[in-house]
């Protein structure tokens, strides 16, 4: 029996969101209960970002494997979900895609950095903090987009194109939106005069972004699971 592409997408999304909903809370708890929480704005936070990076990549790899296996069984697969691997599958094109993606990510780090400054982050100090926030935001938003949809579609997504009825695209878009929204909302606690350590820039924004990302995945899972 054939598996329709739509159902395929649903399964893939279920896997993605499930994966995230398992590993992300673990990361959050680990960060929260260790000293890493207060060093979100320091370079020493890079290991955690690395963990997220690796987890996102492996999520994608496992997901594509599952789809491939399914599709080999049924004889057809929907190539939409396999942007990178299907395109002639040559190392050259992969390399090209990889370079493109990394360029986009670097550009987006700069963009996030300047947007943060424009929205009120300090210009002449706290570069480290602002930079770490932009890196975190990139790992949560642009990196998955590049991974799952390819560099050019990621750009399109950033400039506000709604992915049609593509479930993976919806997931990515929603997680980007909610992550940024979370970071935006996080800034609300900074001006309060409570004098807590976690009010330091960029801890509230970073936490907001992380929570927004989790929320997006959770919501998507709730949406998708009944349709399976």
């Amino acid at each position, binding site marked *: 029996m054939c598996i329709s592409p739509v159902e395929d997408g649903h399964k893939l999304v279920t896997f993605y969101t499930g994966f995230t909903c398992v590993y992300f809370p673990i990361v959050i708890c680990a960060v929260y209960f260790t000293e890493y929480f207060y060093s979100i704005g320091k370079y020493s936070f890079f290991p955690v970002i690395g963990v997220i990076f690796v987890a996102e990549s492996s999520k994608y790899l496992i997901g594509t494997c599952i789809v491939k296996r399914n599709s080999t069984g049924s004889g057809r697969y929907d190539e939409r979900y396999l942007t990178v691997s299907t395109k002639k599958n040559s190392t050259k094109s992969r390399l090209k895609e990889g370079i493109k993606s990394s360029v986009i990510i670097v550009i987006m780090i700069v963009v996030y950095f300047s947007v943060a400054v424009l929205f*009120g982050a300090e210009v002449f100090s706290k570069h480290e903090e602002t930079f770490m926030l932009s890196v975190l935001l990139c790992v949560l938003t642009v990196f998955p987009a590049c991974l799952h949809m390819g560099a050019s579609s990621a750009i399109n997504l950033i*400039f506000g194109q709604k992915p049609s009825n593509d479930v993976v695209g919806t997931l990515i878009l929603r997680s980007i939106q909610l992550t940024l929204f979370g970071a935006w909302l996080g800034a609300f606690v900074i*001006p309060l005069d409570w004098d807590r350590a976690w009010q330091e820039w960029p801890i509230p924004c970073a936490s907001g972004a992380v929570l927004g990302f989790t929320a997006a995945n959770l919501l998507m899972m709730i949406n998708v699971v009944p349709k399976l």
Partner: protein
Amino acid sequence: MEIHWKYFFLLLWFSYLFMSGVLLFARGFLLNREVLPHKSRCIPANVCGNTSRTNSNNISLQSENNEGFSTQSGQCRQEELWTEKIDMIGDQQTCWLSRTKVVLIVIDALKFDFVYFHEKLQDQELLPYQNKLKVINDLLAKEPDHTRLFKFIADPPTTTMQRLKGLTTGSLPTFVDIGSNFATPEINEDNILDQIKSQNKNIVFMGDDTWSGLYPKRFIREYSYPSFNVWDLDTVDSGIMNHLMPEILKKDWSLLIAHFLGVDHCGHRYGPYHSEMARKLSEMNDMIRSVVDTVDNHTMLFVIGDHGMTSTGDHGGDSDAEVTAAMFVFSRKPLLSTEIFPHSDTVNQVDLVPTLSTILGLPIPYANLGSVILEALPSLTEGKDILSDWKFALETLWINVQQIMEYTRHYSKKTNQFSQERLSLVQMSYTMLKENIKSISSLEDFVNFSSRVKSHLSLVRQMCEEVWVQFDAVLMYNGLLLTFVSVFFIFLLVDGVPGDQLKETLSGTFQYIIIGCLVFTAFGTFICYLINLGNNIEISLYFAAGILSMIMVALIIIRSWAAISSHWQNQVKSNDWLSVIGRVLLILSLCGLFSNSYVVEEATVLSYFLLTMAWLLVYNFKPSKPEPAGRVKTSERQLPSWFNKTLLTPLKFKLFMFVTLLSVLVRLSQYYWLCREEQIGCESSALHKAHSFASLVNMRYCNSQWFFTLICLALFVTVGRIWLRSCGNLVGFSPTVTIARYGPTIIVVCTAGFWVLQSLPNDTKYKLFLPLQIQILPWIVYTVIFVALMTTLFQPLSIFVVPRRKDSMILPVYGQTNIIPHLFNQMKELMRGRSKSGVAGGDDSLGKDVPIVYGLATVYSSVFVNVCVFVCLLVALLLGDTMASSVVLMYTTSIVLLIILSAIQYEKSFYTAQLFKVPWSSVICWGFLTVYFFYGTGHTTTFPGIQWEAAFVGTGGQFSNHVVPALLVCLNTFAAHVVLSVTLPVLLVAPFTLHVMFPKMLPSADKDSIKSKDMKRGELILYEKADLLYQEAFILCTKYILFFGIRMFMCMLAATVHCRHLMVWKIFAPKLIFEGLGLFVVLPCVLVSYLLVIQITTHIKALLLRLDKESSP
């Protein structure tokens, strides 16, 4: 009445509603203490028989102190007198007879730090204000028994007039008194000066003329000097110096007051870190030294500061630096010994009143709340007899306690303000003291007792403080209710009722009913007042008119409820999430008004919201013809390009650029922020409060600042002129055009000249010029601006009708102008069609004798550009040379925002009528911008943050009345409100202007057939649809004032909710006052802008009629 005047009066009515609500609330919230007319009186000193008053001492005690003078008071037994005194209730007090005289030297803003001597510091390390008053230190070291130095804690608000009130009556200040700083009213409450007068003693006064305002006709000789000119450091002081020594030698007074202003003015002008401050303090030092050398044995010297100053030299708030003044006491007679009496180095300012009363032998003023400072009293026996010393101190204390008790008792009886439990607590503590006093027999007992008295008095003081922040709840709730209901109903009216329906409602007989009812209420209230039914005409007028108006508006709403509900249903369906987001952001910013941290950080919060709004607007912007989704995907598959062209159209790209520019501009304006003391690291910003205090930073820095500002202004004027010229609005020689052409340049030159003269050092300046000559420059500016605004109001059109000649057709003058004849052609055709007078044959000849009119396509916007330029320049002059560039920044930012908003609006609307409707999101953006640039032009919502120096521009500190300086300060403070409110209709006009001036920016312009055809006529289309214009401009204005009304309501609510909050007087109340003043500035400005729209339209009509007549003979 024509429809536009109806709209105008409707706006006026709405403004009145908001204002009356706010004023009602303010009456209740900014309430104060009731002033009791009672005066303390003296019991004749010899109550109990024939006590002789002759005493070799300069202070003759009342005779019951018979330990010392037992021979003369044999008949009076001590116990009897004690009981008499203990039970004595009433406004009568025993007083000492005293021949002591007091010299009270008030050095305005004498901070404790100025007096405190740093022995360890070397001369090089000293700040300019340190160790300058050496005489005080010398005396303290040399004669410890004769001198005292205290920290003298003033009660906030630390403004001179409030302080003087406290220093003479001994009462606590209330908040609203701040408002009366401009017009000093006479003090009628019982005070120390009146007490002296009533004992037939004399007072001599010299110095600050605030005293003369507070106490007219109290002094036998007075030498007062104007106080408001804070740039003048020396007039007052040298005036006092001339009179001080001769007066001290004259001996016919018992109190001599000398109020020096130099130190305070120096603080305002240069700040405490300037060398001028060292000079002023050294002068004071010499003055004190010579006074100390001159006074005789019966004279005591008090040197006090009425308040302190912040590190920028300002005062008015309640920070430690502002309230900590100094008090120095010197007496030739020894003072009560500090070894016996508990000594504290910190006293309250009001404590001076009972102390002075005791020394001068006066009853303590009736409303006094201070406690006598024992250590500052002279010893009766020159320190030899400790027993009589403490008896004397005990009695003094007890009189003080009784006086305060009597006052609180009377006050609570009269006003019912004190809470019962508090009162009983005080009563209990008083009874205990009364029991206690009988058993005092030794010095230790007395020391115990005096500390108990201290705690009792502070308890009373606490009780009073609590109550005098008491609000009139009824008025407050009425005000809140009125404001809420007006905001709510006006929102329903504007947002719910479709425009045409509103017009219908207004046109019927209903309007007459409204006017009739309003007139009737006004008369009714007045008559009620005349026959004494209502006791306060102002409040009843507000209230009656408010209620009636609400009923009227409710009637309108009920009448058109069907329309409202259907309109809302449509809105819900259309699901415009941008305006939803706009409202959410608005609500979030309103919630921020309830939190003190957000009020403190409001500038940041507002810029955050403004940028969020702008970015969302652009991000969400879709070009009007989106490609079908399927095609996007195929192209994406086939062309793995960097990005999809259809998504990032050139227009969207430009918008992204603009919004980035907007963000950068807003971010840059953060360097103009004035921080407030609650913020961390507040002292860091170099710009704050430093402007026009040129010497605070070094000269070179100042010059570069000045050049930068000047270049900004010059660019601003030039760009404005280029714009007008390319619009064709600078052709010809009509008065409007002429003044628009030359006015700005004249203004900028004069302004720059004025700033140069201001930054000259004082001595050079006055050698070269008379003060009058300097003030001529600002007066030229004022005159030009006044003339320009008046011309613009009465002759708004800056267009030029080319005289009809054959060759005039081929005159391709400036840029765009050659399309104007074509435009006019079309328009005229339309006119003819409308009036149906056009003859068919006439159309053929049209090509030949069409009149050419320059600047008709931008006829609306040019007027607003003109007005805006002049208002901006006026505001720039008032802001001073450092901050003036912020106005240019504000102007640029608003233009960028305007471009974004209008481009989006243009793309979103499908037909012309839709373009007239300004959506909520734009209005909210504009509102955020307005409130944000209140901060962006270097202001905060604190009283020390007000830039008083604006009052000196063009007046030089000589005021005949207080209206002009108040107006100038107001213009300075609410610069953003004025500029952005007057130019409000530009929001409506801008899409048309944008299309005429930059047709290439809007690529879809050529495609849309109907819209672009309409749009080609530029802003004339606004005239053609004049009815729609009036209606939508009205709705725009109402939405805008609604924005401020809602904010005001929330501020009022926040103040109500937090009225017992710790921060209410520091944060919420100033916020409320500034917001209220802002609203009061916005309302007339919006009305003026609507008036401008009306004026332009009527003038175009007249012009076209004239042209029509000329062309068709």
